[in-house]
Structures are given as C-alpha cells and as structure tokens.
C-alpha cells in the first residue's frame, strides 16, 4: 500500500504535471501555429481592449444577457468554477504537501469551508448531469463523453471528501483521490476541459471582432 502511495504521490504526480502542462502547452502552441499558417489574418483583428472587454463581461456573474436570463445556471456555473479552482489550491492538506516537498506554504481555507466547497462542486456536477437529462436542448447534444467529463471533474472531490471524513478506509481513499486528481489534470489537455485555456482566446477573438470591427457588444 505504501509503495503504491509513494508511486502515485511521487513519479506519477510528476508525470501528471508534465502531461498536463506539456499537453496544454502543446495544444495551445500547435493551435497558434495552425492559426499562423492558415488563418493568419485573424491576428490583424485582435484587439487587447476589446478582448479584455469581452472576457470581463463573461467572467463577472450576470454581466451578460444570457446569464441574467438563466439565473440558476449562472449561479451554479460560477459557484462550481470558483469552488473547483479555489478548493484544491487553498486546501490545508494540499498546502502541507507543498510545504513538505518545497517548503512553500500559504493561507489555507478552514477545513469546514473547504468541505462545503467540495460538496458544492459535487452538487454542481450532479446538477449539470441532471440538466443534461432534463433539458431537451442539452440532452440532444449530450453524449457519454459529456457525463464522463462530469465524472472526471467530480471524482477528485468525491474521493477527497470521503478520504477527509475517513468513512471508508483512509489509505485506499487517499490513493484513489490522488489518482482522480491526476486523471482530471491529465484529462484537461485532451478533452473539452481544454476550454479552461481556450476560453480566453475564443472570447478574445469574438470580443475583438464584435468590438473592433462591428462596433457592437457581445454580451
């Protein structure tokens, strides 16, 4: 057991980061080259001002018409993403690991809050899954892969939650948690989770076209 733990926490984690960072960089750089090779003209229209204007309107809750028209989804989506990004970074037990390995540490969330945030992520994933079942226009475009993405996203939080509360055998749960986290990171460059990086560019481009060329708002 200890051997497996050492492996997933050591070499496998390294590998995960290499694949996550390397893979994401590969996706971004290869897209950049493809753009340069075949759609170079796109650069002519990029505008920092309108890129930022567009991004801002879409990372602030309720700043776009569509967000206002769907308050529940908007709240779920923002709460989900915030918890998803904040929890792992400010979780005390994660910071302890950083401290052990690299002598780095920072402010940590109180555990009970982190606990709630993990539940929120899980709850949001369940919500998204239900949404995919219930709303015909979402169901129509949903495939197994979309549930898989939700599962991959929820898994680290479910396993982390279970491990923390030690309801099931802690060691096993911990290993599963690390594996789930690693799976999620590895999945990012190779699934639609790449939206984490692409989001900024698609918005920047649309924002530049709408603002710079068409003098219109895109929110």
């Amino acid at each position, binding site marked *: 057991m200890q051997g497996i733990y050492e492996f997933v926490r050591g070499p496998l984690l390294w590998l995960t980061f290499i694949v996550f960072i390397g893979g994401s960089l590969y996706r971004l750089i290869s897209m950049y080259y493809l753009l340069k090779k075949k759609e170079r003209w796109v650069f002519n229209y990029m505008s920092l001002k309108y890129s930022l204007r567009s991004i801002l309107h879409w990372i602030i809750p309720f700043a776009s018409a*569509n967000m206002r*028209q769907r308050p529940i989804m908007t709240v779920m989506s923002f709460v989900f993403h915030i918890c998803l990004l904040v929890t792992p970074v400010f979780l005390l037990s994660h910071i302890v690991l950083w401290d052990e390995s690299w002598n780095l540490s920072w402010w940590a969330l109180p555990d009970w809050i982190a606990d709630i945030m993990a539940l929120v992520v899980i709850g949001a994933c369940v919500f998204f899954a239900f949404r995919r079942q219930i709303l015909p226009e979402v169901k*129509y475009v949903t495939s197994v892969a979309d549930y898989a993405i939700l599962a991959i996203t929820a898994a680290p939080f479910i396993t982390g939650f279970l491990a923390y509360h030690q309801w099931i055998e802690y060691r096993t749960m911990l290993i599963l948690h690390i594996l789930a986290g690693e799976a999620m990171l590895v999945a990012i460059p190779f699934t639609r989770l790449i939206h984490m990086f692409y989001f900024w560019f*698609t918005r920047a481009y*649309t924002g530049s076209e709408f603002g710079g060329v*068409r003098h219109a708002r895109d929110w």
Partner: protein
Amino acid sequence: MAVPATKLKEKKEIIDVGLEEGAARLTYERIEQVINRVITAEMAARMKVYVDTCIHCGLCSTACHYYLSHGTPEWAPVGKVKQTMWEILEKKGKVSPEFIKRASIIASTECNVCRRCSMYCPYGIDVAYIMATVRRICHLLGVTPQYIQDTAHSHSATMNQMWVKEDEWIDTLQWQEGEAQAEMPSLRIALDKEGADIMYSVIGPEPKFRAQLIYQAAILMTAAGVDWTMPASPGWDNSDMAMFTGDFEMMGRIKRTHFETAAKLRVKKIVMGECGHAFRSVYDVGNRWLGWKMPPIPVIHATQFYYELLKEGKIKIARKLKEPVTLHDPCNIVRGRGLHEMMRYLVNATCENFVEMYPNREQNHCCCAGGGVINCGPPWKTKRVESNSIKAEQLAATGVHICIAPCHNCHGGLEDIINTYKLNMHTMFFIDVLMKTMEIPDALKA
C-alpha cells in the same frame, strides 16, 4: 421532449430541385474527397477550437429565433452543429448524399447566420461561421437550394443579383431621374461622374422591383446637396448571395467589381442603400477574401448616412410622423456594425412616438429572412415564417402599426410574418419616413 428531426420532415417534405438533383449526382467518393479538401485546405484553428471547446451546454439555444419559435432541440444552434459539422468531422467526410442534402437544408434554410448565438455562447463560439462552412461544403458538392443558386448565377453572369442587364440598369436610373425631376427639376442621377464625393450603390432588387427607392434616394441626395454619382457599369450592385451559398470565389469577384468601380470613379466613400446583408458582404466578409482588412474605400450604410446628414444639418425635418412606430434592428448593421444608437437618433428625429420592441439593439431577434434564407425562394417560405413566431410575438407586443426596418431582407421577412400572423402592421424604410418628414428647400421644388 426532443422531437426527432425525421418527424418534422415527415410533416412536410419540401421539394427543391437544386437539392434533389444536386444530391442525386453525388457519390460517396466525391463527398469524402470534397469534405477532406475543405477540412485540410480551408478549415483550420478557428473551427478546431470551436468544435473542441464547445461544452455541449445548450446555452446558445435561446439565442436562436428558430429554437424560440419551435422549441425543440434540433433548431438550437448547437443542435444544428451536431446534425452537420460534428457528424462531418466525426465521420471524416464519409457521409451520404442524403446527409448532405439534409445538411444543406439545415445550413441554408434553418440558420440566418445572424450571429445572435455567438453573443449567447459563453465562449463566443461563432455558429454562423460553422453553418457558413457547411454551406461552403454543400456548394462545392453542388447541393444548394435552387433559387439562391440562381441568384448566385446571376451574380456571376451580370455582377448583380437579379439578372438585370446593363442597359436595363441605366435605363431604370434614367427613368427614375425623369420621374423625380417632375418633383425636383434640378435633380440629376449623375452616371459615372468621376471625382464625385460619393458613389451610391444599391442591391439588384432595387432596380428590378423597388425602383422608387432609387427615386427617393435621388430626392434625398439632391435636397442635401450631396455630390454623388451612380455607376453606369456592373459594380453598382453591392449585394452578395454568393457569400451565402458559400461560393467565396464569386463573392470575391463581385466585391472586387464593386470596390474597383468606386476606385475608378475616384469617390471618397461608398454610400449604400438600406440593405443589411450587402453591408456585411462589403464591410466585413467579401473584402477579407480579397485581402483587404477593411473596405479600401469607406462604406457607409444608408442609416449612418442619414444620421450624418441630419446631424450636420444638411437635411431638416419639417414635420414628424404622428403614428407610433417601432424599429427592427437588422442583424447585419447592428450586431454587424453597431448602428443602433444612430438609428434611434433618426427615429426620434422623425417620429413623435417611438415604441421600442423587446429585446432590441444587439439583442434583437432576426427577421428569419436574411442570411440567404429568403433567397431560397417560395418553396421555403412557409417554413421560414413558421420558424419565426417569436418575431410575430415581439412585433405584436409593441401594439403599433408601423415597423421601420432599414434592410431589404428584413422587409421581405417581416412583411411575410405580418401577413401570416395577421399583425395589422406595415414596414417602412428610413427613406420612406424621411420622404414624409423631410423639409424640401423651396428653391428645389417644381
């Protein structure tokens, strides 16, 4: 619950020779070969990023008037992408002629490439571009609805949309000039006047069906004392159905003719009539295919031109329209050029009682006629009107009887909606409003 696409098809199968005959000639090999050529040579980073990023969230659905009118998922933007591009990419072009026919129907008659959905998608994914690419594939496979294909042919043969022959064009201008001189003796439609300030260009249907719009433009230009000219050669038409069939080579040729006509006349700018799709082609799309980042000669849409004339005091309003009016914001000059505030200035300057429709400005619902859909002709009319009941509701809610719509396609589309849903309304162009409200200087009167 989702209605399968086939069920709707059973309801009424629309027969379009262009699609039937076009699809009948296809082979699997040809389809695969053409699609793969488009994938490797014409699609690149944008398409890939859009398809890879789309999280299948369906948030774009309520952007689309087709979806809002029918309420079933195959009309949602992402639903249309699923039925076309996803399948094409997933099967790497190994799709059937029947599939291509259906794809052409979706891309050409179930999407106005109005770009409202890219304003609703959290990533700003441009579904209109994806649909335009599907049309491009269908064009290269020769499966395009008959009527719009015919207009694309007209463009190729005559450089205008309506098979207007060169002499008919000039003759029409001279006829309108003669008519208008009865009202304003000093009026002149100067043909090919080199060095004028403005070249005025219109769309093919104006000389063909709505020549009085040329008459009215001439009255306005004369009243405002503008130094203007119209070309006596092909290049007078700014419209572009080739852009909408996906015949980009022809789109480039038409736009080149238009711009070079203006350059040869050494005008400072091109003012174009109240048309939306033509503006998109001249201002945003056609120029790019030719390598021009922005139009090489500035292009001003009529509404902006009227706005400037009013602001500069070159025309004055003598009396305002008393009847309440509403305003339809055409996609291609609002989401396409942000002219909405200028148009509101115009409405308020010319009408006493302006009732907004909701949503408005960039958020306005498309007329469902633009993007080439109305140009697919009579076979598709009922479907087009049924696909925009949301517009009928939006219009009806204003409670007024006049709708100003500064776009030809919008006009056609709204008229059909108004008639079908019995809305007791009629549409006007801004120039119609100006003709009723503008002051004609005494010196110019007959």
